[in-house]
């Protein structure tokens, strides 16, 4: 069984994010980039399924310019078998990404798509759900446990009220949460092997998809800086301020 794992190149989670001076976007110039942490968990899960003999092939796919090949290579170094870069000038929005993935799923016919529940740059949490809808596949989101048995996958979802266990028919889309696993460190021999693993480049046209982003980024503003506090002389002054200035009472 094939597993497809989409991975996204995002700003490294250790980096302090800065906004461009014209507020048009986050400043990514010379900033350290990395694989989205949720995608790392997805890659780890796919590789574990391969090591357990459940999966026969793990394919990773990323979208963007050539630089996203770095993240594909990282996934290959973690144990994925081959990579696909879908070359796009601008980053597709969630729906465009889902359409590209749909076309790829139809071409590759994986039984499972394992992906991060969201990316830490836009925090949308949409692509997995959209992909499932477009393909009309079962979906399991926020997954913290999963096991494949025959043509079904059992998943545990983290939901508001606790945990929900579901069984999905394959093929299915699974989006993973933080607690699913602890991603491994890449080993040196696998880093060396990753160089020789196949990495194909496709265009949206190759997949018969016309990119048409529906979402426009209007402005990005940093959170307001916290103001210094004040000391109040008495409880009544505090209550007064909470009531009349902060208006929280």
């Amino acid at each position, binding site marked *: 069984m094939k597993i497809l794992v989409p991975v996204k190149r995002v700003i490294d989670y250790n980096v302090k994010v800065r906004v461009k001076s014209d507020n048009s976007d986050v400043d990514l110039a*010379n900033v350290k980039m990395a694989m989205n942490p949720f995608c790392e968990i997805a890659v780890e899960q796919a590789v574990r399924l391969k090591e357990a003999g459940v999966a026969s092939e793990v394919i990773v796919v990323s979208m963007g310019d050539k630089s996203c090949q770095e993240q594909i*290579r990282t996934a290959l170094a973690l144990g994925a078998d081959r990579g696909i870069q879908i070359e796009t000038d601008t980053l597709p929005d969630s729906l465009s990404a889902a359409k590209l993935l749909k076309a790829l799923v139809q071409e590759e016919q994986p039984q499972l798509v394992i992906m991060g529940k969201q990316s830490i740059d836009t925090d949308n949490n949409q692509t997995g759900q959209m992909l499932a809808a477009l393909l009309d596949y079962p979906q399991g989101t926020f997954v913290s446990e999963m096991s494949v048995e025959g043509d079904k996958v059992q998943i545990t979802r983290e939901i508001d009220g606790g945990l929900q266990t579901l069984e999905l028919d394959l093929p299915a889309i699974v989006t993973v949460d933080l607690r699913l696993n602890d991603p491994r*460190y*890449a080993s040196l021999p696998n880093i060396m092997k990753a160089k020789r693993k196949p990495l194909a480049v496709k265009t949206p046209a190759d997949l018969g998809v016309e990119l048409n982003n529906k979402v426009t980024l209007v402005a990005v503003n940093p959170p307001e800086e916290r103001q210094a506090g004040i000391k109040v002389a008495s409880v009544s002054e505090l209550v007064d301020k909470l009531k009349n200035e902060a208006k929280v009472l």
Partner: protein
Amino acid sequence: MNDYKHPLTDVEFVLNELVKFDELCAAAGLEDVNTELASVVLTEAGKLGTGVLAPLNRTGDEVHPVIVDNGVKETKGFADAYQAYVEGGWATLTAAEEFGGQNLPNVLGTAVNEVWQTCNLSFALCPLLSQGAIESISHHGSDELKEHFLPKLVSGEWTGTMNLTEAGAGTDLAAVSTKAVANGDHYLITGQKIFITWGDHQMTDNVIHLVLARLPGAPAGVKGISLFIVPKFLLDENGNPADRNDVYAVSLEHKMGIHGSPTCVMSFGDNGGAVGYLVGEEHNGLAYMFTMMNHARQGVGLQGLGVSEAAYQLAVQFAKDRIQGTKKDGSRYPIIRFADVRRMLMQMKSGTEAMRALCLVAAAEADRKNTARQELLTPIVKGWVTEFAQELTSLGIQIHGGMGFIEETGAAQYYRDARILPIYEGTTAVQALDLVGRKTLMNGGESLQSLLDEMAVDISAFETLGGDFSLAAEQCRTSLNNGIAARQWLLDTKADRNASASACVNFMMLFGFLCGGWLMAKSAVQAQAKLTAGEGDPKFLQAKLISARFYCEHMMPRTQSYLASVIAGGESIMALDEELF
């Protein structure tokens, strides 16, 4: 340290701009090895270091290894970390492919080792010693010994140690008295070795000791010492560890630093004799030791860089957090805004950058098979970097103020850990004597001349930057002239061994600060060129320019005083009668 950030951008800058990594790999016939691969390798090493080794650094300092019934038990957590290191295949990085290595360049291995050394110096000593053992066996061992011991040393499944020092034989290895007697196809070793780093532990199922010992009737002195392999467990016919050999760690030293690294007293042959296998020929052991000396000594120099980098990162963090100043409007500010804290931070920043440049440039000479240059730079890397590390780790404490003296902040550990570096693997004096004797006088100063010539070219290029760099370039030129004058003085006074022996450490330090400045100047030229071309990260390149300027203006003038001391000679050093001390 927990908040370690691998300085990948600086490492890549040195590899690309100073080492010319791609050219080096192409010349060495290493297909597919390039800066892109190096970057991935370094990034992943950085993750393992940050995630696994750094969090254990403090643990090793506080929870020391202990002697238990079956030997030494290492600090809790180290075995798992070692397992992660081995499973990641990191031990195999530079080793030959035929024994399971990845055959990557020495300079990349050095850059990766910097990660381990910075994150956890005590831990990283273990693989460093294994690399020494691997080198001795690969160069001098018989095919049979290689076959038996190399694959598992290379993979890291077993670790190696170097058993040289005895109570009566420290720097003076001629005094080695451990005995070896032929016994069938092997030898029986008896004697005691001290200061054996990672001499025993439970992290692996075998430990391979390389031991210097004397055969009966061997010539006295250095020409009568042979080298043996003494495994902790003898191998069965399948090459697996079986019977316990007669070698035991009998006690552990109480030290000032590197507490996580067990420093053992090793006893050989208490129950009749430890089985040992001769490496190479009889009586040639010390010569064999010298073949791995460049690597081991450069490795210790690299530790000086690692511990300084760790101290710097901690100090920066503290200087940004610690609020001590008050502005007129009553608002408070952190100590990083004080000029003298800045001076100390700049010394640490530019100092570690200069160390890194020198360590990597020297390591690359091994890949280029430029033996003369490699041998010339080795005592400078070991001597200067580890001495300079004393100053930088001390500044790390100073920046913390009173909190630096309190163990809780972690600044003190780096200072204590650093203190062994100018001592083991040949003291500073040994390095300095090596530099003036074998590396300079023995070739009529030729190696040094070629280095000075190369520096002159790069410093001329630095002089063309002008503007803000005028003073820096001037200091660089003066320092170069100081180097030229010191070399000339040495050649002129070579007949007076007393003079050169008295001057050697100052001579070595002069060349250390000069080499650092040369490479910082070269970095500045490259950084400026990249900025002009609109390449690279402008913030990093601007910082490199300022760092280079600071180093040249504030560190290089030291060459002047070293030169003065060199030229003063040894008279006043040796004049005082022993009784008057």
